[in-house]
């Protein structure tokens, strides 16, 4: 079933919409939820909440692409759950990925004093736009999708070490970029 057909089912308020959405994009959504929350029970709950979120948003939304839309809902719900402390902590790829990024942002002059999330997101978008496709791919899969380094190695046909080194360089570049943009001192 195409995304357009699934969205049509949502507009008809047919419960089959959820079923078809889960069939088509369930694997991607589950993976994000599990990567962030780190345990199957919380991830399953998050996936179900994602379908409910989609049900509430469509209509009026007619998202395109649908996959990004549901992945974003899942990520937002999972991170909210994670930060609310209801999820099992310190055991997910999301944790590790956040820790990695935080290492590159000094505590002494915290970035949140200088900008909000939206401004930081816009800066990261501009930074990504200037990266090589492979670096952008690795960065997004690690820090947006919270994929493990091992999974990235598989996906990119590179060694674990090569992925790790490449990401390290990207983070160094990001830090320098944020410094140049005045978001870090």
């Amino acid at each position: 079933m195409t995304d357009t057909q699934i969205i049509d089912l949502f507009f008809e308020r047919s419960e089959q919409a959820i079923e078809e959405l889960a069939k088509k994009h369930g694997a991607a959504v589950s993976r994000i939820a599990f990567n962030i929350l780190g345990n199957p029970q919380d991830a399953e709950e998050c996936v179900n909440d994602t379908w409910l979120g989609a049900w509430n948003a469509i209509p009026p939304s007619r998202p395109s692409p649908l996959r990004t839309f549901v992945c974003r809902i899942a990520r937002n719900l999972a991170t909210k759950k994670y930060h609310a402390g209801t999820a099992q902590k310190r055991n997910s790829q999301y944790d590790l990925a956040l820790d990695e990024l935080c290492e590159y942002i000094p505590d002494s002059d915290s970035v949140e004093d200088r900008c909000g999330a939206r401004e930081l997101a816009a800066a990261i978008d501009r930074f990504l736009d200037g990266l090589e496709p492979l670096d952008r791919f690795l960065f997004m899969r690690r820090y947006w999708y919270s994929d493990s380094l091992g999974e990235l190695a598989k996906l990119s046909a590179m060694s674990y070490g090569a992925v790790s080194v490449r990401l390290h360089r990207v983070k160094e570049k990001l830090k320098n970029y944020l410094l140049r943009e005045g978001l870090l001192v």
Partner: protein
Amino acid sequence: MKRELLSKAFGEMDDGFVLEAYRSVPEDAASASERIVQMKTKRIISIALAAALILALGIAAYAAFFSMDRRVPEATETFRIHWEDHPSGYLEWHNAKLAVTFPDTAESREIEFRPGWLPEELASLGGETWRDRLTAEQLADKYPNMTASQPMLIETYYMSMFNQGGALLLLYYTPEDIIEEHWDEQGVDVMRFHATQVLPANDFRPETKLEQDILLMSDPEAGWVVRLAGEAGMDTLVKVAKNLEIRQTGRVLTYDDFMDHYTFMDGGVG
């Protein structure tokens, strides 16, 4: 605070980057010559002589037998998987539906493959590139009746990885009738079956049955295993498997070259 700000910022990022990262692996990565198997190569040479002797003795013994064995583990049986960078260093799993084991092979010959035939829907994945993994989820849209998102996945494993009780596990799917064959033309043992997973009904979906076919192809002399899986259909998997071009890279892999000695045929973190 810093963590939350970063997390929120990532939630605000451009859809284009999110989609791009999901859809495709950049070409410069796909053509990289680096291998994906995590290896401690320094150890290989030091045990090569001993391993060669064991292998020579082993081949004769194994040749007369089917090179894959299978059992249904007890629900409580624990499988411990290394988890990179995790503080505890591992995760444990239970309730495996099937464990496939192999002869304790000291050395495995590393291989790479390329499809000699692919169904029309997946033809864009063909070409001259030699690989150790092929995934087709990016072409899932071409299979309208799929229950998951994987038309076909091809992965390589090595018997030396599974020594000392290691196994290839089916964690979530339950196998139906298991067929065991020997394909003379390729000189390989084959185990293949249809597998299903039933997701119980909840508030948002009815009971859902996921299905896939799995085909394991092993060469006991060289010590490698190839898994073909997905929803393209068993006939398709068989045809792809029979037309798979396989070559050895010249590398020899032993037990110590692998971080984990269990891996999953149907998801998980293996």
